């Protein structure tokens, strides 16, 4: 149940639901634990509920740190898994 990944918000419904997408798969998640969710936000989803909004600024900081680490080597970072 803990294997969730960030889901992008496609639609927000006034009754507390959102349609989200991960890798082409769309599903419905409850927004009962979150306020002010907007289209385009990334959510961390768990068993049908959005637990929190992904903090994009912090994600970018972590990625920048990783890019710095990768720069120690002479070739660019690439992803292994698709």
């Amino acid at each position, binding site marked *: 149940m803990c294997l969730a990944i960030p889901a992008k918000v496609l639609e927000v419904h006034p009754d507390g639901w959102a349609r989200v997408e991960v890798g082409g798969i769309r599903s419905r998640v409850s927004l009962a634990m979150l306020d002010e969710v907007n289209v385009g936000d990334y959510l961390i989803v768990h*068993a*049908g509920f959005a637990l929190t909004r992904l903090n994009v600024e912090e994600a970018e900081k972590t990625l920048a740190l990783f890019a710095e680490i990768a720069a120690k080597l002479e070739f660019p970072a690439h992803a292994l898994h698709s």
Partner: protein
Amino acid sequence: MRYIHEFRSAVVAATLARSIAAEADPRRSYHLMEFCGGHTHAIFRYGVQDLLPPNVELVHGPGCPVCVLATPRLDAVIELAADADVILVSYGDMLRVPGSRKRSLLRARALGADVRMAYSALDALDVAAANPNRPVVFFAIGFETTTPATAVLVLEARRRGLTNLSVYCNHVLTPPAIRGILDSPEVVRIDGFIGPSHVSTVIGSRPYEYVAEDYERPVVIAGFEPLDVMQAILMLIRQINAGNATVENQFTRGVTREGNLKAQALVAEVFALRSSFEWRGLGSVADSALQIKPELGAFDAERRFNLIEQPVIENKACECPSIIRGLKKPTDCAIFGKACTPRNPIGSCMVSSEGACAAYYKYRHRSRSQSVADA
């Protein structure tokens, strides 16, 4: 997929592995427990252990909800499901977990019980609304991640007047379980903890501060991707080398010190602390689980039904209890991969993908050459 691939870069993993190898002191060893089963799964899927020097060992923790459920409580719900009137709803993993005498909820369903699989706790609302003349019981399990969902279920059932719905509450708490492991008389050596991702999005990083202070063990909350875990390992090694024991947060994109206050308020509205609760593997742990508050007692299956917990004789060959405590590895178990496989699980650790045995089994053919950094 944004914010997923970037956290799986093989080059970064190789560089982090090099830093870990350079900074891990060869004169000592590092025993780091990943509490959460999601981390256990990621560690095996990406071959993280193979990227670490031999003196850095990952110890798998009890953070697998179905693994830690005490068998008498599962047996009680299997008995309840046998009642022809009752509709029982739970998460998929739970249905496959073996109770005593090789029974399970799936087997009960094959024998005629009305057992339904839920993706979300709120699925139980639809079942209750569609069957107003039958009692519907949601078999609620999980750590702090699924607890707010169950709270929403109870509050919605009350709002919609679904008086036929009740919840069999088995929600457990992460921080007391960490205390339970550290207080265990059978000492497992743990020098630091990789803190859970999703649990921490809800409770925040603050509840771990006592582990750092009282037990003098560093905690680094980590995201679920392999680079997150490796960075957290490096952060733990740095703390241990410096003689520090503080709470650090690697998963800043999901976790704050305070956590999700709205989710915490939902939990506080519906649940009260149990003074003690029986865990599989850990035994009785004080203040480690939740029950439905008396004022919402109409939705508490333990008040509505006669759920009797009978003592059970566990399968002696199954090492699940020791594996949950981090005392043994799945490969130390005589029946691992032989009598006990994911298709025919004897112990709960082989059922869920978060269980250490299932993770070992699934990725058992992975060799060093297939790990993430060598790609």
